[in-house]
């Protein structure tokens, strides 16, 4: 097939991407179809079925939904054909929204993978979605922290450290209140949360002072915050938490079902039967979106992130906007850390954030610096993380080390630019100097 440059130009223009990327997209789509055929479809025996359980184990009140039973081999052949067809379409005509098409392909590929992995067995889909959401929450909070900071052009590499600090502070203070002062858990946990937020605010303020006031390179300032947090929390954890176990036991928040909504089949219990911190995340997403795009502060934040001098000439205090946003960003990151404790495991371990802050930054980029985009990206990472644990249980013939790599591999692939160019705020990372 000989294709003149103008054809590529046309296909690329339709999707709003560069000609090379348009072609790469098409090849990736076809490749996905080919992989489904080679890896999965040929391995499926005739007559085998894959069962997807759509009921969430814990919720007795939910109306039961029948399991989804698919014939393995025909499903896989159909998925391979659909992928190949979409690839051919992209090469010949071009999609108007190539990134959406890419998302669909990814979804189809994962569907194929699950169908293959659960052949001859049953797979609890709802349970995995629930686990995916819980794993996505800290990533989403990290990403949201990144959005809040970078929208006013301060890069926050220190999210990981801020989360760690938040987690540690929440553990120590909530345990202290619960086990030594004898507070009831409904008081000790909010106390721990508030202390974590205060600690996060201080970490954010520290970054703001370094980046805005002293104009330190923001990557280095953030890295310093990470190293500082790892050092302090590890030291205090070894010195205090290791010796006084009652200081490392906060208890965890229990799920609170939202009336009516949690009865929605399949997704109801996943979304609406969670603990209060998850609902807090939903609220924060909505609030951040509204503030960013529909209020005075948001407009000024975005202007400062794109063209600080323009904002300055209009009498907007660039430094103040950055101080406030980065401090709030620190609090949101610390909330992510507190979630790991109060909303998840109830005790602190050294380095327990395990890169979630960095994955959050990837989610922020993937989500194009939009709150809900970042949340969606965080869900994908959470899904990859949950998938790897489920697959280990299904005894898939893939070494567990590779499964553990899944979320990180996903991060690398996404950041390496499979998805269309993400345009950061124009002034991102640049200190502002008055003339």
């Amino acid at each position, binding site marked *: 097939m000989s294709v003149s*440059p103008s054809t590529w130009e046309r296909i690329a223009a339709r999707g709003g991407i560069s000609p090379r990327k348009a072609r790469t997209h098409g090849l990736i789509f076809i490749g996905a179809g080919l992989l489904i055929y080679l890896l999965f479809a040929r391995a499926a025996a005739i007559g085998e079925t894959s069962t997807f359980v759509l009921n969430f184990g814990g919720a007795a009140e939910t109306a039961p939904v029948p399991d989804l039973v698919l014939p393995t081999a025909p499903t896989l052949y159909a998925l391979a054909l659909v992928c190949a067809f979409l690839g051919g379409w992209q090469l010949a005509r071009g999609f108007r929204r190539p990134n959406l098409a890419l998302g669909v392909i990814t979804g189809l590929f994962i569907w194929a993978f699950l169908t293959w992995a659960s052949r001859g067995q049953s797979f609890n889909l709802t349970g995995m979605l629930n686990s995916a959401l819980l794993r996505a929450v800290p990533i989403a909070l990290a990403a949201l922290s990144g959005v809040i900071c970078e929208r006013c052009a301060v890069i926050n590499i220190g999210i990981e450290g801020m989360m760690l600090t938040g987690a540690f502070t929440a553990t120590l203070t909530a345990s202290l209140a619960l086990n030594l002062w004898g507070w009831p858990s409904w008081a000790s946990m909010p106390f721990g949360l508030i202390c974590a937020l205060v600690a996060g605010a201080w970490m954010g303020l520290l970054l703001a002072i370094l980046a805005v006031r002293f104009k330190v390179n923001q990557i280095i300032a953030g890295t310093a915050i990470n190293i500082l947090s790892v050092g302090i929390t590890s030291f205090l954890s070894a010195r205090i938490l290791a010796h006084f176990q009652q200081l490392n036991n906060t208890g965890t928040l229990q799920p609170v079902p939202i009336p009516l909504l949690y009865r929605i089949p399949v997704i109801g219990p996943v979304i609406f039967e969670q603990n209060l911190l998850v609902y807090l995340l939903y609220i924060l997403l909505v609030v951040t979106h509204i503030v960013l795009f529909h209020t005075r502060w948001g407009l000024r934040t975005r202007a400062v992130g794109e063209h600080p001098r323009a904002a300055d000439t209009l009498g*907007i205090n660039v430094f103040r906007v950055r101080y406030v946003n980065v401090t709030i960003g620190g609090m949101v990151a610390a909330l992510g850390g507190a979630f790991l404790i109060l909303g998840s495991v109830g005790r602190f371990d050294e380095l327990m954030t395990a890169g979630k802050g960095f994955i959050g930054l990837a989610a922020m980029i993937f989500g194009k610096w939009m709150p809900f985009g970042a949340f969606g990206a965080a869900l994908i990472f959470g899904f990859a993380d949950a998938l790897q644990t489920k697959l280990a249980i299904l005894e898939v013939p893939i070494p567990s080390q590779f499964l553990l790599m899944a979320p990180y591999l996903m991060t690398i692939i996404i950041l390496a630019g499979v998805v269309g160019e993400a345009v950061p705020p*124009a002034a991102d990372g640049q200190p502002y100097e008055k003339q």
Partner: protein
Amino acid sequence: MPPVLELRGITKAFPGVLANDHIHLTLEEGEVHALLGENGAGKTTLMNILYGLYSPDEGEIFIRGRRVEIREPGDAIALGIGMVHQHFMLVPVLTVTENVMLGVESVKHGFFLDRTSAARRIREISRQYGLQIDPDALVKTLPVGVQQRVEIIKLLYRQADILIMDEPTAVLTPQEVEELFKVIRSLADQGKSIIFITHKLKEVMAIADRITVLRNGRVVGTTTPSQTTEEQLASMMVGREVLLRVNKKPANPGETVLEVQNLEVLDDRGNLAVRGVSFEVRAGEVLGIAGVQGNGQTELVQALTGLRPLLGGRVRILGGEVTSAPPRRILERGVAHVPEDRQRDGLVLSFPVADNLVLNTYYLPPFARAGTLQQEVILTTAEQRAREFDIRTPSILTPVAHLSGGNQQKVIIAREFSRPIRLLIAAQPTRGLDVGSIEYIHQRILAKRDEGCAVLLVSPELDEVMSLSDRIAVMYEGRLMDILPADQATREEIGLLMAGVKKSENHKDTKTQRGIN
């Protein structure tokens, strides 16, 4: 009645320079007051003081007879002072409405942005002053002339009645300049007072009610267009007699030196920036490429000098194929390049003048022997060239970063002209230079032409292209709209071509379009 604005004895010193030296200036109501001066004369410093971006060391500011302190832009805005900056202060990814309301946002329910009422007020302003605008458009999608309108509306929205315009015509096509002048007139007629900063004499004569000339931070004089001439203003600006018109002999074109066929080049974002450009330049002639900045000129020049890969087409120099050749092979065929951004592409700023003078020949004898630099030869050559090209520098060992723009450009000219060259590619050779340096560089370029060198001149300054070129090509959206003989071309015709308008649509254009659909 006291004047709208009065500056008394404004003084501002920067380390090593007295940027403003006891400046007095008055602005009457409804007046267009031009502030004329070369780069570095102190115009922008003065206006930044007035706008609260700098604080003066000495002096007082009076608004309608009342003494005021302006510490930050917010103060200036509150006093009714507005500024259209030379580099637009617009956020490209926001809409017109958002840009205009930024800083004085109207809100409903005390919290949410009220874009609707802001857009309504923008439409009112747009009607009142004849400034056509779509409030919902994203600023990045607007042409430069319209973006400038947004800047003006921004000031009117804040009810500014003293408008400062810093070099507002630098980025406009001739038609857009005319449009702007109409707007300025209408603003002045409705009682706004305008300070118009520029270094272009023609514009001053066309638009100003009064003219104040600055030189080296001092007021040289104040006059009106009817009492003066362009020549007088020029000598006031420079402090000596200057030749405004370039005297050139008729061209004597010889063999074809540069031959470009169907050149296609991508820009940094992977979009087609040069779309099938063909032309040739002959020995002893200047081909000027006119066009508003950002229409593919940069990519064209980079492709010709080997700095950017070609997507398609051929380039031949003196009959030899140099398509996709590395820069050094192109240089060695006798091509000199005066780059558009001299500080980024033309010089190594932290290197001394002497080293910058041999950046393209350092590896050849006599500057290098057996792989070793011959410092003594380099230094003596540099001394000699600094004298010959009148490079004003404390020493040839001074880092070139410390030189003025004009002298930096002379270093490049000296380096490029001091070897046998057959083709000169000069991109914006006088960008940001003062009248004196411009005169010098124009003469040097014409001298090269008369020696039989082929010259490709790329410049967004229409006056420069028209006065130096023998033939003029106009570039628009990556295509050459037309190539005209310079003596037959009119400003109007070229201005229309620069805006993409052609009297009879070219047959070839419609054909390529059909190919795309």
